[in-house]
């Protein structure tokens, strides 16, 4: 069930149409982020399945310039595929292009670059899908009478965050959400402490705030911590994107009714398979290419070389104990 298996030069046997012995390097936004640790776990499992060499490297802070330095290193090491979550959609383009000219393939996941700088983007969810689910969740949590809501984002420059926020605004313009009023967007910089203080600032400024959306794992946990310890607990609704382990306590004590996330391990797993397929020539990144991602099944490359993981999962008290990441 492999597509048109193109180049087959050298490498021995294949798994799912993927050559063995591929050098696949994961380059997260930063190495000290639990979210990427999970993604890495998935990636490593996948690379193991098709008998490649997995490595993970990256800067200790999420800055594009530091990432460039790692891209340079990886291209010098003749890595077959760089699987990167971009800190900036433009800033790392030059380095990626230079790497590609040396024969390295590039897969982006989680956060994309400009399409021409990479071969495939493994998207965790479409911006549309995320925006829709977030607005739906907050609307349910706030209740019928609506009210003021605010967004607690990551850094002001995060590409994916800003795309989602734009879509959320479009979504809010729809008549069914006319009672919800977005009053502020603040930035916690994906720093726990800063996010915490921003949440606190929001409530000091808008005492009648009804809900907070924090579409970032660091932000939602910080906001939950703040609400839990304040008099606003239960009065201010919270939703966003978070990991079940982080949010379990808050879901159970009612600080947060429901939130969403894709499974980062699956995201990494899929990205690794996409990388393998790309390096083996199974896919080239053009629309319609198909490949099999191990236990996740078959995926098709969509427009702009995007591969979509699927819809995010919504976690609430009923299902949260079934997940562990």
């Amino acid at each position, binding site marked *: 069930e492999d597509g048109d298996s193109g180049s087959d030069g050298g490498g021995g046997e294949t798994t799912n149409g993927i050559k063995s012995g591929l050098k696949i390097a994961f380059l997260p936004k930063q190495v000290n982020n639990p979210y990427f640790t999970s993604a890495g776990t998935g990636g490593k499992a996948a690379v193991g399945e098709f008998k490649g060499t997995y490595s993970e490297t990256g800067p200790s802070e999420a800055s594009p310039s530091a990432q460039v330095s790692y891209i340079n290193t990886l291209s010098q090491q003749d890595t077959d595929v760089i699987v990167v979550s971009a800190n900036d959609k433009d800033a790392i383009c030059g380095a990626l292009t230079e790497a590609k000219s040396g024969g390295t393939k590039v897969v982006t996941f989680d956060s994309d670059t400009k399409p021409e700088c990479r071969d495939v983007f493994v998207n965790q969810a479409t911006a549309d899908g995320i925006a829709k689910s977030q607005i739906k969740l907050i609307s349910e949590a706030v209740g019928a009478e609506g009210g003021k809501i605010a967004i607690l984002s990551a850094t002001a420059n995060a590409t994916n965050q800003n795309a989602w926020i734009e879509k959320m605004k479009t979504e809010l313009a729809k008549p069914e959400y006319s009672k919800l009023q977005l009053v502020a967007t603040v930035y916690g910089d994906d720093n726990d*402490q800063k996010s915490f203080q921003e949440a*606190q600032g929001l409530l000091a400024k808008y005492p009648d705030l009804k809900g907070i959306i924090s579409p970032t794992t660091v932000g939602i946990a910080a906001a939950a911590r703040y609400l839990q310890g304040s008099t606003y607990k239960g009065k201010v609704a919270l939703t966003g994107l978070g990991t079940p382990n982080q949010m379990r306590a808050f879901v159970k004590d009612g600080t947060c009714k429901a939130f969403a996330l894709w499974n980062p391990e699956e995201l990494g797993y899929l990205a690794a398979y996409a990388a393998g397929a790309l390096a083996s020539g199974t896919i080239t990144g053009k629309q319609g290419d198909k490949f099999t991602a191990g236990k996740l099944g078959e995926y098709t490359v969509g427009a702009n070389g995007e591969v979509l993981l699927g819809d995010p999962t919504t976690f609430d008290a009923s299902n949260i104990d079934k997940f562990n990441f």
Partner: protein
Amino acid sequence: MTAPTGVVHRFFVVRELGIGLALVLLVAVTAIVTPRFLSAQSIKDLLLGSTILAVLAVGQAIVVITRNVDLSVGSVLGLSAFATGTLFVNAPGTPIPVAILVGMALGAVCGLVNGVLIAAARVPALVVTLGTLYAFRGLDYTWATGRQINAADMPPAFLRMGTATVLGIPVLALFAVVVLVVAGYYLRTFRSGRELYAIGSEPAAARLSGIPVGKRVFTAFVVSGMLAGLAGVLHAARFGTIDANAGLGQELDVVAAVVVGGVAIFGGSGSVYGAALGAVLLTTIGAALPVLGVNPFWQRAAVGALILAAIALDKVLSARIAARLRVRRARRA
């Protein structure tokens, strides 16, 4: 008392007064715009927000008074916070006081490393602590390797400490108050405390006066480390979620708080009270700006501008006092 004494005395009081005044002004303006700024919850948040910075600032002030600086406090805080979390993960039954002691001890060990290098190897503190800023953070990263410790991993009693209040005052803030009062009283009333000022004022003279300069500076760094360790524990209790990035970049805030609080960056003068006030002022600025409706993109710039304004104001005040001192010559024929 004689007239000059009054002037001199006022001089020392006035430094803290200036910052206090700025603080009152800021709170007043904000409260007029948004009365809720003075609600119980909001005041509690302000106090909580200042606590960690204030504890760090007290330690930093002690170091800066000796004409040194400790840039590693943010990294020490990170290590200690992660250690506290790990301790609870591995030994869930650990009593809270033990956790506090462990955090402080770890911080003290980090301070000891700084202190040994600075006092024994006699190298500039700025370079050494810039080095340990990297080194301790690197250790923290290596230890955590992308793990995160969540609220669920820590005992509820510990987390409750992070939000609980006594008579409306957060428990964490009480820690800061105790630290502040003890440090302030010590620096003022004990020989070794005064010697810290002497060392910062003129290190060479301190040596000639038989002051054990190395030992005192060493102690200052151990204390600063220990307080950073305590701040790490408080951080864990307050934020509940800890990854390896806790306290990242905090050193600049701390130094800013100390400087804004009127502690001379070249040592010898200033007080821990001023430093703590500086911490409260900075936190309040951070909290007041969103409340005042300042665009988030303007906030950072406003903080910078306020730091500049605070040190400039302090300078103007002290220059005025100095001029007065000069005119009233202490010694008259």
